[in-house]
């Protein structure tokens, strides 16, 4: 059973791991450059010409490729097991993988040839090679196909199981993919209607403000597309790994529905400082962003309560004694729990970013890079690593190469991220250090920046070591001769309360209606106005 699904998961996750490896290599190099150790000239022979080419690879491979491929692979594995049925049309999901892989190649070639050094936000009028945009489009279209494959599987399951509650893991995964379908419309419109005709030379000019607005229609739900698979694991799997039960299953479902409804109509909080967007709409998106914080606060409560049940079942007592009783020796558990702790800090800095006037102090400074590495770099990536500590042995049928190395990896990632992110946050807040900048060569850097620059560089080096430990385990496991002695099954957390959750938490139409309505209200007028007064005046620039 699940032969197709396992191979599909394996391919997707394999590509994701290669992307994270190549993209991750640049991380420590950037932090060393900050403190004046410039290793980029040594990379010239390998075709990496500039800091910014490396930075583009870091962003595209880690933020877009590693995440999208891992998520599709993880969901392929998890949805079918949660529904206990195979993919309805495996060929559709294979086609999805092929389209995504072709897109990756199409985008990777210009990236490696230094013809698309536009960072992962590719703001026009910086103009990359057409194949870069085409490649990104194909990756997105491929992920849509994968989503359709999941939805067909779900509708077939629903037909056979009328009235049965959708299992939580499947529901959370499907909501994530549907949210992704809606979110990616923004970037699809940006690329297909604005960027591609301009990049191909069919039109000479573009409207940068309109392109940015379409990008951030996609850009904020993008971060929830990364985060929700980690939530699927935290709610649906981790309580089982901790020996506990899911404290409140209905609330877990509500959280996923709230993310569907609220992820998109908040994108303007990335554009508070944009000149072409009216203030009233910025305020509305700011308020909705605060509402979007509620499901994450609920998650903090429910997940911690579920883990507490586990800790107490394992013999922990007292107010906090249960924390020590949690399975800290299990690297899959430890990595994900450490990821949650870092996410708490990331949540605080994220709320700062979203707070209309506080944002002025930190917008586009390294504070944001610090936030991003606590969220995407830790909550998401360290959780995915934790998932891989059981999923990789399962998919390869090999024992994990080393539990000890895996534990060291999780803790070094935790320590490295704390140091690096702390440094970046402070540099941004106190000194206005700009993000995504070759700081080691900038003349405005003051001597008082040095302590925090050094701290973040030390963090970067520790993260590099953690990366080496991670890939030692990945390669060691894949090429190990020790096959599994006992079969591994996907951990599925039981609900504490056996009463089934109410029907309104397992029905799509009202939630989709609310989602569409909120998007129309929050984005309709502002986009209509920008399109009606389109300002097609910017020719393309290739300046790297």
């Amino acid at each position: 059973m699940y032969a197709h699904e396992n191979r599909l998961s394996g391919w997707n996750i394999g590509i994701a791991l290669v992307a994270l490896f190549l993209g991750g290599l640049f991380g420590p190099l950037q932090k060393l450059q900050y403190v004046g150790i410039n290793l980029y000239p040594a990379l010239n022979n390998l075709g990496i010409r500039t800091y910014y080419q490396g930075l583009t690879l870091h962003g595209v491979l880690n933020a877009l490729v590693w995440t999208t491929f891992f998520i599709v692979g993880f969901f392929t594995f998890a949805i079918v097991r949660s529904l206990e049925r195979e993919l309805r049309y495996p060929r559709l999901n294979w086609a999805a993988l092929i389209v995504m892989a072709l897109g990756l190649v199409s985008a990777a070639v210009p990236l490696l040839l230094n013809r698309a050094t536009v960072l992962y936000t590719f703001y026009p009028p910086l103009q990359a090679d057409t194949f870069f945009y085409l490649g990104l489009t194909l990756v997105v279209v491929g992920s849509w196909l994968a989503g359709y494959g999941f939805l067909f599987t779900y509708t077939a399951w629903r037909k056979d199981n009328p009235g049965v509650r959708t299992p939580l893991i499947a529901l959370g995964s499907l909501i994530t993919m549907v949210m992704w379908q809606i979110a990616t419309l923004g970037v699809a419109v940006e690329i297909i209607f604005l960027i591609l005709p301009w990049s191909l030379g069919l039109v000479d000019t573009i409207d940068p403000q309109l392109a940015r607005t379409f990008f951030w229609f996609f850009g904020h739900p993008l971060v929830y597309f990364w985060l929700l698979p980690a939530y699927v694991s935290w709610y649906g799997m981790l309580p089982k790994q901790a020996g506990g039960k899911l404290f409140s299953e209905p609330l877990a479902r509500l959280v996923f529905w709230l993310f569907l409804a609220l992820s998109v109509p908040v994108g303007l909080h990335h554009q508070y400082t944009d000149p072409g967007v009216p203030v009233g709409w910025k305020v509305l998106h700011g308020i909705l962003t605060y509402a979007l914080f509620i499901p994450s606060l609920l998650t903090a409560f429910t997940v911690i309560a579920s883990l507490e049940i586990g800790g107490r079942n394992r013999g922990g007592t007292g107010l906090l004694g249960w924390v020590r009783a949690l399975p800290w020796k299990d690297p899959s558990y430890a990595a994900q729990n450490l990821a949650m702790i870092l996410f708490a800090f990331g949540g605080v800095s994220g709320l700062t970013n979203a707070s209309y006037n506080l944002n002025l102090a930190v917008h586009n400074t390294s504070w944001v890079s610090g936030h991003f590495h606590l969220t995407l770099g830790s909550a998401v990536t360290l959780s995915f690593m934790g998932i891989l500590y059981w999923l990789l042995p399962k998919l390869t049928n090999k024992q994990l190469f080393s539990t000890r190395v895996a534990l060291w990896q999780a803790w070094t990632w935790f320590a490295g991220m704390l140091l690096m992110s702390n440094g970046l946050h402070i540099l941004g807040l106190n000194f206005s250090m700009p993000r995504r900048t070759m700081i080691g060569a900038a003349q405005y850097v003051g001597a008082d920046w040095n302590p925090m620059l050094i701290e973040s560089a030390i963090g970067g080096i520790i993260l590099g070591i953690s990366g080496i430990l991670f890939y030692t385990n990945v390669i060691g496991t894949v090429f190990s001769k020790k096959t599994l002695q006992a079969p591994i099954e996907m951990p599925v957390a039981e609900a504490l309360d056996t009463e089934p959750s109410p029907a309104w938490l397992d029905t799509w139409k009202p939630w989709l209606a609310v989602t569409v309505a909120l998007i129309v209200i929050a984005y309709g007028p502002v986009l209509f106005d920008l399109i009606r007064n389109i300002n097609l005046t910017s020719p393309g620039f290739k300046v790297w």
Partner: protein
Amino acid sequence: MNFHRSERIFLIGSIALLVVFALAVGISGFAYGIQVPQPEMRVDPRTVATPGVSPFGDPVNERVRELAPGRYEAYILAQMWAFLPNEIRVPAGSTITFYLTSKDVQHGLKIEKTNINMMVLPGQISVLTATFDKPGTYHLICHEYCGVGHHTMFGRLIVE
């Protein structure tokens, strides 16, 4: 649906906390007159720096004007990879309204130790005002990637 008591308290507390934060943001925004850029006017970046078309076409040394004692306006053109003018001198206590646009790619402006933080886009004009009471040198830093010389793009505001 069984809604646990502790969970209900946590949820109400969370929402109350967010409401308090939102009020704090809103009230302080009004009290301190916090402003963010908003639509000013659209321009054509291909011609905006041409003399006679806009104040960004004036000679560089005439783009900072004293409107009244202690009140200035500064038209700063962002381009790869400089702010023009890249050095501004005003006496302490001056209030400056900054007008920025780009004649090529996207740029950004953050002035150290101030709330001046804006995206600078071709085709749009960004406007913000600040008062500088403390003498010193404030860097004008470009915070949006604008090509291979991005890190060399900065200017100075000298408050005397």
